[in-house]
């Protein structure tokens, strides 16, 4: 019921707005970058709409419930990335005239091999980023509306691919810009309502966190995956017929798919390997990753991954290409920082209220649903249902907007870079990419949205961040250097994640550096790229190719200029003379 009311309008509006883009779609450029006619304000709203994914709308608050106030560093890193982008990448990237990141790699270094490698990296990043979006769509619908998990996943996949197949980037732009303001509204209004409804006692408890040790009221916990609980003495559960049965003390293996009702006053069991919400260190503003006891190191590696990763996210970079010129791209970045800052002032409210009202979610590993679970805890009547509906709609808008950009960039990588083709092939690639992601998301429901998305950021930070920064600001970059650097970053980051999944018997700072490798993988990729480039020689046109990125559009038109000076246009020696003159000047000036 609630699903139909919350999700159907969002999907419908997405499709309707998407239809607006259909009329003017003829070329790959139309499809991928909306013919580069998008104004900074519209574009920054679209960037923000695309960027505020499941990880931002639900994940941050969920991580606050689970890991503590330190999880609020994620939004700081997410926003800071756009300042790095503004300072280093935005304008030069747009001036390259490329359509995608692999396109840029070829425009700067003229290497088809690098282009193919970059396209593979794009696919890895968008896979890591897309799976949690679809997965959270399924999870939220199963929590709110009691649908099976796969229904939400399939709805998300279908809505995204239909919008894109019909309207491409132009459709995506309007949809994402609309959805940003929609999400902002649907995030702020329930937050204010919750704050006024919870009453002074809960507000005080929220500001003075205590450890979650016992259930304050009868609480049903649904375990979707099998977990191991440590049952303290005195714990009990309520049988379906209402009688209270004491639980045996010690380890308790709960099978997946079971719902357990704990009666009010029962001590809460502990989840093996996790600290309870509100426990020691929860209120510290540092992120103790995996409870290893190195909170500062954990915080810094998350910040490095999110900040530097934002700079290399292919779907965000592609949005910058829809700007008319470099100056507009820069303004887009600044407006995006402002819009995101407004949004990110609110997740902590959901987080600290969730600590008080829904701490039991951590037992089943479903803290991602804390935001949508809150209204029902505060008001069991119509208003609670209404606000649950609003938040579900907002969360669904978040999945859709982000998935639109990611599916677009993935299909662009397949059909524009790996197997070049026309518009029809792009549309087929969209459907194919969405189908593959749906299949990947179906078995992935045990992963936190935050974890997988941060892995996507880390891969972007270790591959595209060095490629873009060195490609734009260092003329000495060579093709072997770029290829080996990108490959090193890709292997280092994905290798560390694979090791983490195998759960090696390491602890302390080694575990942090494996689970969150940005702090060493990014410098390593930079170092490999630089050293290998220093051993080779950049081609003679490299300096001119780099400088072209920094030349603003704010100058006389090239053609008018040539006619005015009446240079020997059409003379057979012109092109040779021109390139040697450029070479001479750049050799003299760039040092």
């Amino acid at each position, binding site marked *: 019921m609630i699903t139909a009311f919350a999700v159907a309008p969002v999907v419908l509006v997405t499709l309707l707005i998407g239809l607006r883009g259909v009329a003017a779609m*003829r070329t790959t450029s139309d499809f991928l970058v909306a013919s580069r006619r998008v104004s900074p304000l519209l574009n920054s709203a679209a960037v923000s709409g695309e960027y505020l994914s499941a990880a931002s709308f639900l994940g941050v608050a969920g991580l606050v419930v689970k890991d503590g106030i330190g999880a*609020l560093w994620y939004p700081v890193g997410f926003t*800071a990335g756009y300042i790095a982008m503004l300072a280093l990448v935005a304008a030069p990237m747009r001036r390259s005239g490329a359509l995608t990141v692999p396109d840029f790699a070829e*425009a700067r270094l003229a290497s088809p091999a690098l282009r193919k490698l970059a396209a593979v990296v794009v696919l890895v990043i968008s896979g890591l980023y897309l799976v949690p979006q679809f997965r959270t769509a399924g999870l939220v619908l199963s929590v709110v509306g009691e649908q099976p998990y796969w229904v939400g996943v399939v709805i998300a996949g279908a809505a995204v691919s239909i919008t894109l197949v019909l309207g491409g980037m132009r459709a995506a732009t309007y949809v994402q810009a609309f959805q940003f303001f929609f999400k902002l509204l649907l995030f702020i209004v329930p937050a204010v309502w919750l704050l006024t409804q919870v009453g002074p006692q809960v507000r005080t408890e929220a500001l003075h966190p205590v450890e979650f040790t016992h259930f304050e009221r009868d609480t049903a916990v649904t375990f979707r995956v099998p977990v191991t609980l440590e049952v303290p003495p005195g714990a009990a559960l309520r049988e379906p017929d209402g009688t209270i049965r004491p639980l045996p003390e010690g380890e308790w293996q709960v099978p997946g798919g079971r719902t357990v009702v704990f009666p009010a006053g029962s001590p809460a069991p502990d989840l093996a390997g996790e600290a309870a919400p509100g426990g020691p260190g929860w209120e510290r503003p540092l992120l103790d990753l995996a409870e290893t006891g190195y*909170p500062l190191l954990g915080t810094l590696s998350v910040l490095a991954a999110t900040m530097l990763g934002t700079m290399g996210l292919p779907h965000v970079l592609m949005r910058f290409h829809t700007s008319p010129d470099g*100056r507009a791209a820069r303004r887009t970045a600044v407006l995006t920082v402002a819009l995101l800052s407004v949004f990110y002032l609110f997740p902590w409210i959901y987080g600290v209220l969730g600590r008080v009202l829904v701490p039991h979610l951590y037992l089943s590993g479903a803290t991602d649903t804390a935001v949508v679970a809150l209204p029902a805890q505060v008001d069991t009547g119509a208003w609670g249902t209404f606000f649950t509906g609003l938040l579900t709609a907002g969360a669904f808008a978040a999945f859709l907007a982000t998935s639109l950009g990611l599916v677009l960039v993935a299909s662009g990588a397949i059909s524009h870079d790996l197997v070049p083709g026309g518009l029809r092939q792009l549309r087929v690639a969209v459907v194919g990419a969405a189908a593959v992601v749906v299949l990947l998301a179906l078995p992935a429901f045990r992963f936190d949205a935050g974890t997988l998305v941060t892995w996507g950021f880390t891969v972007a930070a270790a591959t595209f961040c060095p490629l873009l920064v060195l490609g734009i600001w260092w003329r000495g970059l060579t093709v072997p250097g770029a290829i080996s650097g990108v490959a090193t970053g890709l292997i280092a980051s994905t290798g560390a994640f694979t090791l983490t999944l195998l759960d090696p018997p390491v602890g302390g700072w080694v575990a942090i550096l494996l689970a969150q490798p940005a702090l060493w993988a990014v410098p390593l990729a930079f170092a490999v790229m630089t050293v290998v480039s220093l051993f080779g020689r950049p081609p003679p046109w490299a300096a001119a190719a780099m400088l072209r990125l920094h030349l603003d559009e704010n100058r006389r038109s090239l053609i008018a200029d040539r006619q005015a000076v009446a240079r020997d246009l059409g003379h057979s020696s012109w092109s040779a003379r021109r390139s040697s003159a450029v070479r001479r000047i750049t050799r003299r000036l760039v040092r």
Partner: protein
Amino acid sequence: MTTNRRVAVTSPQTRLAHARRRHRGRWRPATLDPADAERAVRLYRAQRTRSALALALLFALVFGLPVLLAAFPALDELRLLGIPVSWIAVAVLPFPAMVTLAWWQLRRAERTEDAEGPG
């Protein structure tokens, strides 16, 4: 006979699209016009200095703040309107600071381009 020759009629956009597809393949990055080269070098150098400064400030803010909070745990006890100061330092403070930094960097970058004059 000549009057019967068939001519393909395509819109300019379609022709452009076809041309773009045919152009794909090996290519060399376009070179600069000599008149623009010196201007590009000046812009490159000016923007490099300015970007480096903005980036240094950003790193100081983003990486300095956690170090500061780790060094002074007393900030957890200090409260402003009932909210711990260290929470405000994470959840609220960085955002206005980052908006200001971004705005400042944009103005400097655009001024650099304006100061170079139109060509």
